[in-house]
């Protein structure tokens, strides 16, 4: 029998055990995750003080001095002296993000419920442990965060005077810094996961504001952990900082600007080059990824004096890694062209490294100060280019950049996206405003010469602009842009847009059609999962059942079309874009009977376009709205309206005495097709029979060699194989099943390229850049017609 005393004792014991159990429960990892709870100090911890740890201060290749270091090498031997990690209980750091206690935190994997803690407050771990990956990631991220925010503070001090007035027309709003020294930049903490289960990859997932660092090898033998390479950590964090920089002026908007997408584009390649530069920014070493990427033959230099480069590349003015010559040049496989944003991005990372060195040389800055100065210029540049409010700078006004606040994303992503020209032009302007301003004396008591800005850019083939474009859309008689000295343009080549033509070879196709069901399904699903393509017509069957694979365009199909473009000049053409998005090329006359928009194709005057199609007898319209693009009132912002956008394709209509080109709406009325049978059934929709799928309505080609097609440019001389097409090289069209076979469709496409003489600046207007609204018309483009017979 139990007596009262024993029962009391039992209760007491159970209570104590309950407490112990609760404590145990908080310490034991959960079964469904890879959580690391409170971990006992490893042998390494015995060597460090509280709040300290030992990390790989650089990547293993650099620390060992052995370029062919084996992946079997014990990386513990490369650990440096103890460094401060954090006195926080968890790997959370940097109080610079206003509204957040910390700017970022590091955990092992996404599923981690508990962040890493140590029993003794020490952060020493075996290099091969998941704990070490987190500590190493934390240390290097913290280093970059501290540097970046301290730099941003200095940027503001260089931009605003003691009374908080801007010293010049800066893009960085004073309000990004709060009274307590923190920054109003991000309202969500960045999470970094140091031990992600992704092969040969690391990524920045913007939607969840997280970084993931993966591995190389196999799932059972992960030979290289990407978080062991500090340059990878800087690069991926660099993408996060680019988002901050691009959106410095977008705090009042829910949607944000970003550099590029999964498809090839110059904006995307600049983003990759900038991320490489973030590594140089922190460590001053002009090479990225020697360990993690290097083991896959994919590391990247950032200076021409790097031994990885091919002969003929050097820091001599005429041997720089110049645009467009070295687009698609992979130093690891120099003879084989590859269209890849990371590879092309090397041009910008090399330029920024060279700019840092030039500033050190000419202005007496230390190398570290020069790197920080370049980052300050990047803050300015990206803040202006990414401004979706359309104001641009402190002295700007609505409509200065990216058209207007309603349509800014369309302009930013499609009509006037960041490319090598706009990016370097804005960098040049910011150099001129700051270190190049004689009144500020910021270069050895003097100033960085305008000729220096232009000469260095020219050595990279990047002096592609004719003015510094200070006033953008607000240019007028009193706001005059500073011209570039033509004498400084020695290496940069500008080519007339008339030189982009279709392959003139006898028998060559002018366009390629892909309608294979499997390929189309793969393309659409990939573009959709990447967030590029939204909904499609309910008419299109889920299995693309109308796609018959005969390489022709038939009713009900989804097809991918690539133009067979040819560079008819004697210089390399780069950043070639084919646009099939809706644009301002139809009249806005309403039908007097039913009030519907007629939308006949405009026949533009020769002053506006090379395109003299169609004749008025063929349906060409020449009403007033066809003679102007957007508002005609200078410097008055009138946002683009739906009437400013017409579908890219018109229909051939056989009438009693002639054949005319008419809008899809007019053709629909003529054949008495109900609007419910249209691709787009929404009221007022203009696409009934055929449309370029939004998001897949532009094609991109990195470069085209002189007197060559893109296919010839990309031909691999080592394997003797043709380069295939990627999803970004084609335009996807959706075709209605109700389109009558035998109908001919004309799609008025617009083509341009980056190193173009007459695609961005207007010789008839002091070589000023075209106003943003003009990019919605024909003037900055070569118009190319795609005529598609619909075949049953």
């Amino acid at each position, binding site marked *: 029998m139990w007596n009262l005393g024993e029962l009391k004792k039992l209760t007491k014991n159970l209570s104590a055990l309950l407490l112990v159990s609760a404590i145990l429960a908080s310490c034991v990892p959960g079964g469904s995750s890879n959580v690391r709870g409170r971990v006992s100090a490893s042998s390494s911890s015995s060597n460090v003080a509280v709040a300290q740890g030992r990390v790989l201060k650089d990547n293993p290749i650099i620390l060992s001095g052995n370029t062919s270091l084996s992946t079997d090498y014990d990386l513990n031997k490369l650990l440096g002296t103890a460094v401060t990690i954090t006195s926080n209980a968890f790997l959370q750091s940097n109080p610079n993000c206003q509204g957040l206690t910390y700017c970022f935190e590091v955990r092992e994997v996404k599923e981690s419920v508990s962040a890493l803690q140590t029993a003794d407050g020490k952060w020493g771990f075996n290099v091969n442990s998941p704990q070490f990956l987190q500590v190493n990631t934390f240390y290097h991220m913290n280093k970059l965060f501290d540097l970046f925010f301290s730099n941003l503070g200095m940027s503001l001090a260089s931009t605003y005077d003691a009374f908080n007035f801007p010293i010049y027309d800066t893009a960085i709003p004073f309000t990004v810094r709060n009274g307590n020294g923190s920054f109003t930049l991000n309202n969500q903490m960045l999470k970094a996961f140091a031990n992600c289960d992704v092969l040969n990859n690391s990524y920045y997932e913007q*939607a969840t504001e997280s970084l993931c660092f993966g591995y190389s090898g196999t799932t059972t033998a992960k030979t290289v952990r990407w978080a062991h390479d500090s340059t990878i950590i800087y690069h991926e964090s660099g993408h996060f900082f680019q988002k901050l920089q691009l959106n410095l002026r977008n705090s009042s908007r829910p*949607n944000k600007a970003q550099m590029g997408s999964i498809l090839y584009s110059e904006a995307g390649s600049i983003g990759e080059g900038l991320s490489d530069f973030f590594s140089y920014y922190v460590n001053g070493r002009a090479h990225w990824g020697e360990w993690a990427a290097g083991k896959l033959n994919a590391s990247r230099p950032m200076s021409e004096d790097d031994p990885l480069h091919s002969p003929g590349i050097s820091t001599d003015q005429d041997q720089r890694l110049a645009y467009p010559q070295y687009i698609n040049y992979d130093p690891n496989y120099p003879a084989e062209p590859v269209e890849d944003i990371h590879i092309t991005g090397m041009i910008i990372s090399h330029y920024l490294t060279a700019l840092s060195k030039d500033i050190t040389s000419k202005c007496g800055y230390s190398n570290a100060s020069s790197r920080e100065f370049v980052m300050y210029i990047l803050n300015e540049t990206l803040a202006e280019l990414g401004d979706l409010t359309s104001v641009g700078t402190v002295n700007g006004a609505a409509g200065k950049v990216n058209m207007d606040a309603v349509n800014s994303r369309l302009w930013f992503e499609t009509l006037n996206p960041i490319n090598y020209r706009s990016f370097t032009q804005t960098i040049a302007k910011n150099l001129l405003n700051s270190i190049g301003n004689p009144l500020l004396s910021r270069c050895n008591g003097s100033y960085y010469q305008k000729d220096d800005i232009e000469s260095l850019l020219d050595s990279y083939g990047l002096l592609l602009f004719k003015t510094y474009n200070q006033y953008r859309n607000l240019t007028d008689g009193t706001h005059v842009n500073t011209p570039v000295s033509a004498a400084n343009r020695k290496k940069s080549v500008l080519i007339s847009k008339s030189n982009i033509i279709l392959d003139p070879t006898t028998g060559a196709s002018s366009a390629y059609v892909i309608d294979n069901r499997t390929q189309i399904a793969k393309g659409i699903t990939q573009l959709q999962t990447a967030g590029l393509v939204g909904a499609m017509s309910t008419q299109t069957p889920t299995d693309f059942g109308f796609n018959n694979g005969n390489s022709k365009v038939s009713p009900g199909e989804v097809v991918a079309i690539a133009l067979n473009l040819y560079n008819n000049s004697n210089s390399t053409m780069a950043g070639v874009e084919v646009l099939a998005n809706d644009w301002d090329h139809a009249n806005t006359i309403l039908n007097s009977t039913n009030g519907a928009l007629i939308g006949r194709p405009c026949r533009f005057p020769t002053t506006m376009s090379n395109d003299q199609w169609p004749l008025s007898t063929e349906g060409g319209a020449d009403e007033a709205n066809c003679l102007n693009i957007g508002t005609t009132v200078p410097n008055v912002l009138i946002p683009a309206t739906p009437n400013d956008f017409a579908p890219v394709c018109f229909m051939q209509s056989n009438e009693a005495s002639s054949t005319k080109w008419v809008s899809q709406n007019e053709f629909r009325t003529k054949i008495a097709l109900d609007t419910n049978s249209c691709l787009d059934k929404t009221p007022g929709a203009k696409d009934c029979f055929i449309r370029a799928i939004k998001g897949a309505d532009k094609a991109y080609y990195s470069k085209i060699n002189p007197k060559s097609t893109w296919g010839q440019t990309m031909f691999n001389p080592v394997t003797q194989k043709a380069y295939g097409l990627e999803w970004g090289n084609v335009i996807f069209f959706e075709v209605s099943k109700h389109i009558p076979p035998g109908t001919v469709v004309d799609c008025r496409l617009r083509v341009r390229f980056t190193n173009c003489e007459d695609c961005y600046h207007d010789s008839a207007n002091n070589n000023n850049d075209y106003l943003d609204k003009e990019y919605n018309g024909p003037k900055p483009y070569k118009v190319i017609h795609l005529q598609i017979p619909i075949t049953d």
Partner: protein
Amino acid sequence: MKKTFLFILSITVAFGITFYIKKQNYTVGSTTAPDWKTFVKKGRREIASHTTTSNEFAEARIISPKKESGRAPSSIKPNPYKGLMVRNNRILMGDIDVKYEDESTELTMVNTPNPGWKEIMGNDMMRFQPEDTKLLVKEELPVIKIQGGQGRYLEQVIITYLSKDGERSSFKALVDSDSGAIVETWDRTIQEKIRPHGAASAMTIPTDNDNGVTAR
């Protein structure tokens, strides 16, 4: 003897309690989150939807709202409305003006919120996906976009695709509150994935020139 018995009993109870507590924390299969929805492609024409389960969060490597609240250290929830203009609890964008924050200022709306917008969007975004693909949608914020003095109701969402082979991809989107159509997307993932040397392209350039399509 009694002491030994007491000790064994206590230890057993202690471990029992420990196990129970851990089970409570990590038994997640039935847990759901109301502002999340999952769409599943079950067959060529069959798309089903349900409130996202904790198992699906785990599959998609998304920290479930339940786990998020139990994370150590806990994350401080940001204020999504901070610094933005608001009308009727919806963020204003486009041609914004402080006057529109005042609900007495007239604003003609071009659409009407439809409770089924998410279903329409989910079905649209899944129609072409292969079987067993999942789409996780998280409602983030309601929005009004103003253009030409008129407003359009939109919903800001986070979309995550999860393929059968475990590949995942996410982005943010604005969706029409009536038609469910995606209006724009951003915050797409930036990959560092190293493409194997000599990897094949998505398509070969067709050699068949007899397509009748001409360009000039």
